[in-house]
């Protein structure tokens, strides 16, 4: 066994080689892989930035907001400029007043900082304003002018520059900065959280690589049409949700519905549709724009918009496509029965039976029971029972079995008492 001698004369060569070993170790530690993984947060952020809306990321410090922005910048092919708001002074954003030779004659110009000059010269880029909420109030005031009016001193940011800001949640912010309702209404608020599995796997050497959405050029008109129908249809049914100032402490500083934020929601629905994004992504965006309650209700109404049109189903029952999910399927069938009730004639009634048979053959039979009972009650005296009803015997016996179970349960309850 070898032991090291405690006192060795310092050897410059040995020193260098020790640092080399350290560099090797660092290189080994940096050697990580990536794997593709869906990331709804990052997808939502990408869409909002693509839609040119100011985004505010709310998240605790140290959970990878900067890493996400780096990934976003490379995906959108934009140079990233990070500005840590809390280490700057207000004049860094509103411009440094420089006293010239004759201030009374020439005025005092507001000189912009170097990063702004470089950004304007480049004409495009992603500006990330980090730690917005830990900056003193005067700095925040100057920053909001930058976000909303896109001005730094005498400079105006070109349209190719996209801005993302980040803030700590109110409860953990050192000084309680919060947005006033008019300001909050101009942002898309995204809550940034970390995924435990992603962090553990990343520390183990494999970080996720999000596949970011791409807009499909062919779907653009269709996306705009869908977004307009979704928002207009929803707001004409729920007029009180067009404008609702946040009341109470919880909703303060967050998203709330107004014509401006509904317009933002409309734009985001169009972008999400054109990109083929999933419901979870759209939900994050819509709730971050008009608030949780109205956002959820809009998502629910989108669900109903997705249900097949009863008239289309009735026109071609043989190759109708019904939703897979039981509750949506029952809603679709109820819609069909309602349509028959609204304009009853024998052909439509027969077509509805054919649809119920198709529903029973392609999915769970219990969802068919209630629509079938209602449809049977719509029969006129001179309509013969259609042949399709023969094939619904399974539904009838199932319903009977449920009835028997109900009777037995009632008897048992009586006996137990």
């Amino acid at each position: 066994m070898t032991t090291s001698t405690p006192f060795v004369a310092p050897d410059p060569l040995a020193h260098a080689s020790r640092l080399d070993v350290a560099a090797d170790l660092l290189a080994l530690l940096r050697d990580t892989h990536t794997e593709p993984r869906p990331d709804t947060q990052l997808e939502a952020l990408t869409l909002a930035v693509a839609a040119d809306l100011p985004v505010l990321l709310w998240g605790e410090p140290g959970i990878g907001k900067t890493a996400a922005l780096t990934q976003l910048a490379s995906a959108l092919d934009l140079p990233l400029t990070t500005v840590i708001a809390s280490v700057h002074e207000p004049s860094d954003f509103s411009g440094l007043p420089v006293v010239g030779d004759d201030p009374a004659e020439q005025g005092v110009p507001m000189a912009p900082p170097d990063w702004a000059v470089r950004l304007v010269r480049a004409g495009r880029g992603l500006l990330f304003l980090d730690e917005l909420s830990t900056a003193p109030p005067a700095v925040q005031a100057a920053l909001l002018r930058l976000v909303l009016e896109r001005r730094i001193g005498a400079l105006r940011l070109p349209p190719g520059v996209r801005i993302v800001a980040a803030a700590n949640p109110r409860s953990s912010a050192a000084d309680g900065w919060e947005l006033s309702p008019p300001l909050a209404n101009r942002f898309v608020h995204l809550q940034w959280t970390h995924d435990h599995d992603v962090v553990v796997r990343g520390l183990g050497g494999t970080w996720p690589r999000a596949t970011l959405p791409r807009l499909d050029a062919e779907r653009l008109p269709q996306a705009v049409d869908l977004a307009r129908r979704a928002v207009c249809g929803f707001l004409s049914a729920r007029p009180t949700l067009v404008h609702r100032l946040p009341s109470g402490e919880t909703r303060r500083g967050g998203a709330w519905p107004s014509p401006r934020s509904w317009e933002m929601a409309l734009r985001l629905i169009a972008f999400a549709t054109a990109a083929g994004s999933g419901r979870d992504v759209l939900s994050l965006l819509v709730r971050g724009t008009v608030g949780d309650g109205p956002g959820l209700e809009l998502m629910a109404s989108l669900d109903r918009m997705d249900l097949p049109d009863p008239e289309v189903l009735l026109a071609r029952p043989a190759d109708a496509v019904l939703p897979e999910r039981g509750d949506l399927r029952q809603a679709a069938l109820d819609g069909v029965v309602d349509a028959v009730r609204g304009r009853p004639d024998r052909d439509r009634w027969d077509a509805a039976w054919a649809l119920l048979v198709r529903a029973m053959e392609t999915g769970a039979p219990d969802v068919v029971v209630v629509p079938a009972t209602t449809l049977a009650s719509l029969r006129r005296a001179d309509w013969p029972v259609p042949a399709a009803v023969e094939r619904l015997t399974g539904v009838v016996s199932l319903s009977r079995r449920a009835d028997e179970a109900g009777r037995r349960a009632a008897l048992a309850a009586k006996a137990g008492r």
Partner: protein
Amino acid sequence: MTVDAPPGILDREKLFAARLHAARVRPYLATALFALHPVESRQVPTMAVDRYWRCYVSPAFVDRTPVEELAGVWVHEVAHLLRDHHGRSDRVARQRGLTGPGERLRMNIAADLEINDDVYGEGLTRPRGAVRPQDLGLSENQLMEEYLREFRLGPGLRDLAWLECGSGADGREREWDLGPDGAHGLGEQDRDLVRLRVARGITGRPGSAPMGWQRWADEVCHPPQPWRELLGAAVRSAASGGGAGDDYSYGRPARRSTALPGTVLPSLRRRPPRVCVVVDTSGSVSDAELGSALLEVAAISRAVGGRRDLVTVVSCDAAAQTVHPLCRSAGIPLVGGGGTDLRTGFTQALRARPRPDVVVVLTDGQTPWPVSRPPCRTVVGLFPRPASSWDESDPDHQPDRPPEWARVVTIGPA
């Protein structure tokens, strides 16, 4: 006539007849029941759910269980998902540091207790072997988190060890789970919407659902507010607004000025906020409520940089008492009782020199309020009182709401 399927093959008709029966006796759960996607599985002992709303069903279990009991199992399984037992299990596991399959089994049992104490009856049969709180000698109507504190695994629970409601009940992945990418799973958004629809159905028709479901629906529609955080944010925001706390001022040149000749820069100045807490000591506010709220305010004002001697306390009933600095910490005499008039408390607080930047009022709101806005920021910590508290001599009396200019945080039990 009903024909049972041959053994070993899933009797779908029986399974769906049970679901239909469940939906008939529990119409407010129909949306959720139909949203469940059944998957035949031979690895599951009975029925189990995963967090993506799939329901794994053992054909043998369906075979040997009567329809009315199967209906009870359907409701039981869907209740796990609606009440987010997997998410709550994960949170409890993190908070209390519970690891291992044994702890997850305890979570499954606790979740079962929360469901089984009130979903059966009224046409729904309790399945055989469903564990109830009284089987473990526990009281009813508690939440899963509370049950979890009250029992441990032991020989007495050996016959419960077959319990298996799947990853949807306790958050631990099972070998039969199809995972997030499998077919017919519900995404997070879909799950939220189903939950919201069921909750709306229950709150829309009060009286038709038992208390446990009502409580659940109320929480989905109006989630409980973290009052500590809200109160903290309100006080912080009031204390760090203009005129108090750190901010830039041109009143004195900045240190950077010498390095930049010809440039005028503001400097960072600091003025710690003065906070005055007006405490409603009338008989209607309990000492425990006051104590916790007062501690909270003191902690918050320290966190925003207020020194202890800058926090003062006024206890107030019908007449305000004198102003006490908080540095005499333990010995603030909260004298009072009887009726309240907070107006005198405000007067007393504002009479202090220098004047406070923030007045925090802790009250149950059964008091008259000042007519005009006081010259400082006001935060009201409100102890909620049931609407039924009324004055016998004046039945039409409605206590005034806190005024518009105050920021109001409702202080809950948690």
